[in-house]
């Protein structure tokens, strides 16, 4: 890469390299100096705030304030005039097949349910199956590998998997090569809105890509939870007369449940926010639109900031309850350790 651009403005570079750390050190030293002057009993109350202060300021600057600004903007038109719920009305009109409804259905129903179930099921199955094999680490690393590939790259890879040529032509897409080998007509995986225009098939094709990317993640976390179960519990169950399936159902799974819930809710959040895979593979066409992608297209293609803000708020409202539940559950798991 060409870094020479950095050298064109040496003074700014120096300010960044020296000034930022100096500012932080100055802040800490100065604040500590002031805290030391405080009476003994006030110090423990004040000191934590000094240390979390910079982080709080950053969160406020890049998260809270923009979120509030977006919220306000969603009630304005593109010239800054207050318009009440009009943006939301536009987005939510035309149920069920126009406006934001396709994106809402895809994000909050299809992606949320199917993606979560697929990743959890595969992750759990693999965690359990690979727990006692000989080359456990090698196999698990292989399954974890797709995590190292960016979603955009995996979207591109899977586009080749799904590639479609008309009937009779040579099929270069892996899946269609298989399908035609069995004398079936090739399937346009990303365009085919089977069944009957509901567009489950092509959405499922997209979800498969994301699932492939994240199964390793859920497997690794669930596998850690599995390994955390003491071996003598399973031995006790065996002596108590339980078969292996009963042991899984009555002992292993209940003990993994808190972790399953944390992974599940994390997946729900990922699902609601999904953007990259549909963006790369279909750009939301053929009824595969999702909320985040719709927001992006409204903002950068249509330059309709107000509508984009409204979609963003819908997305936020969908995510926040899950997020809160997830945090609570995570804390509950931690508290049990």
């Amino acid at each position, binding site marked *: 890469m060409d870094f020479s651009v950095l050298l064109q403005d040496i003074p700014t570079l120096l300010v960044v390299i020296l000034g930022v750390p100096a500012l932080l050190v100055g802040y800490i030293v100065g604040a500590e100096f002031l805290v030391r002057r405080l009476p003994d009993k006030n110090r423990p109350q004040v000191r934590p705030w000094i240390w979390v202060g910079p982080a709080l300021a950053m969160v406020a600057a890049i998260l809270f304030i923009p979120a509030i600004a977006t919220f306000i903007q969603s009630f304005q038109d593109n010239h800054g005039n207050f318009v009440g719920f009009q943006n939301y009305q536009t987005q939510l009109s035309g149920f069920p097949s126009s406006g934001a409804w396709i994106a809402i259905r895809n994000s909050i129903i299809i992606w949320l349910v199917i993606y979560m179930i697929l990743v959890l099921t595969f992750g759990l199955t693999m965690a359990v199956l690979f727990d006692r094999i000989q080359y456990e680490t090698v196999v698990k690393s292989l399954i974890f590998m797709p995590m190292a590939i960016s979603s955009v790259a995996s979207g591109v890879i899977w586009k080749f998997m799904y590639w479609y040529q008309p009937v009779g032509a040579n099929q270069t897409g892996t899946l269609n090569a298989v399908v035609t080998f069995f004398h079936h007509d090739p399937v346009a995986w990303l365009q085919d809105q089977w069944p009957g225009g509901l567009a489950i098939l092509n959405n499922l094709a997209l979800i498969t890509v994301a699932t492939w990317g994240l199964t390793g993640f859920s497997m690794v976390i669930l596998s850690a939870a599995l390994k955390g179960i*003491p071996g*003598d*519990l399973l*031995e*006790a*169950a*065996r*002596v*108590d*007369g*339980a*078969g292996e399936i*009963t042991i899984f159902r*009555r*002992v292993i799974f*209940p*003990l993994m449940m808190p972790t399953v819930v944390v992974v599940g809710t994390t997946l729900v959040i990922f699902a609601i926010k999904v953007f990259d895979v549909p963006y790369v593979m279909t750009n939301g066409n053929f009824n595969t639109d999702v909320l985040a992608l719709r927001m992006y297209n409204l903002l950068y293609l249509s330059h309709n900031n107000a509508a984009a803000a409204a979609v963003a708020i819908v997305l936020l409202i969908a995510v926040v309850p899950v997020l809160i539940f997830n945090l609570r559950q995570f804390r509950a798991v931690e508290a049990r350790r």
Partner: protein
Amino acid sequence: MASVTYDHVVKRYTADVTVVKDFNVEIKDKEFMVLVGPSGCGKSTALRMLAGLEAITEGQIRIGDRVVNNVAAKDRDIAMVFQSYALYPHMSVYDNMAFPLQMAHMPKTEIDKRVKNASRILGLDNFLKRKPRALSGGQRQRVALGRAIVRSPKVFLLDEPLSNLDAKLRGQTRIELQKLHRDLETTFIYVTHDQVEAMTMGDRIAIMNAGILQQVGTPGDIYDHPANLFVAGFIGSPTMNFVPVTTSDSTAKASGFDVKLPKSVPAGKATLGFRPETLTDRIGDQHNAIDMSVDVVERLGSDQFLYGQVGSDSVTARVDPKMKVEPGDKVRLGLDTRSLHLFDAETELAQF
């Protein structure tokens, strides 16, 4: 209720790691058998092979007349109490105890009756709804016992069940376990590294060392007639005195004293063994006088132990607690010649 037979049982992990070697023992129906030995000697492994948690490399294990080598753990009808208790943390005390009964597809009313009965015996009535996390160590231990006794199993296995309790609770539980054994009339196999537990609880004791069974017998038998140097040193506290001697005919000559042996032995080197309680301040016909220079005096109220030197050998004596002795003193003690042990210098086997 059943007998248990270990028939030439061997456990090998790899070609050169043999953890249990040619293990032979027959445990009678309703017997309380204690398997004792130092940590790492293979006691747990022997027990786990019986429970079906560990494969048997060679030999046979029988429960009653049935060879169980290839029977799955869940089908052996055995109950086991683990050292860690291994309670199911997500289940209430009630469910923990009901679990083995549910596995046996017992009717709900029968399960309820049995769990209530066991919890009454163990004093757990008030804790049935609690999770194990909310119990003390002693209570958890009782739940583990409860989970085992509800089933009326053929054999009851306990792997160091008391080692996580404090000394007082351990003493109480020891007595309760013996009572439980009497009431249940079931075969108990109890593993421990603690010779006091072994001596106080076992109908018979099997002593293991380095994977090899050393001796099987009643506590009194083993205490009075240890088969070899290891058993003699392992059982009894403070440990037996061992003094190297040279024998000729029926006398043994140590560095600081001579002693007349009850029978004549071949001339040569050997190890003389005598327990601290046979070296006392009583001196009489049956006693050999021995001079000891005292290094340490240990007063326990009911007992007084003297640690010191006789000739160039370290020995321990047990004297009257009223005897006034200070470190540095020279005292004259009497060795009771009726309970001497002599061990072969090579094989370490007891000659008497």
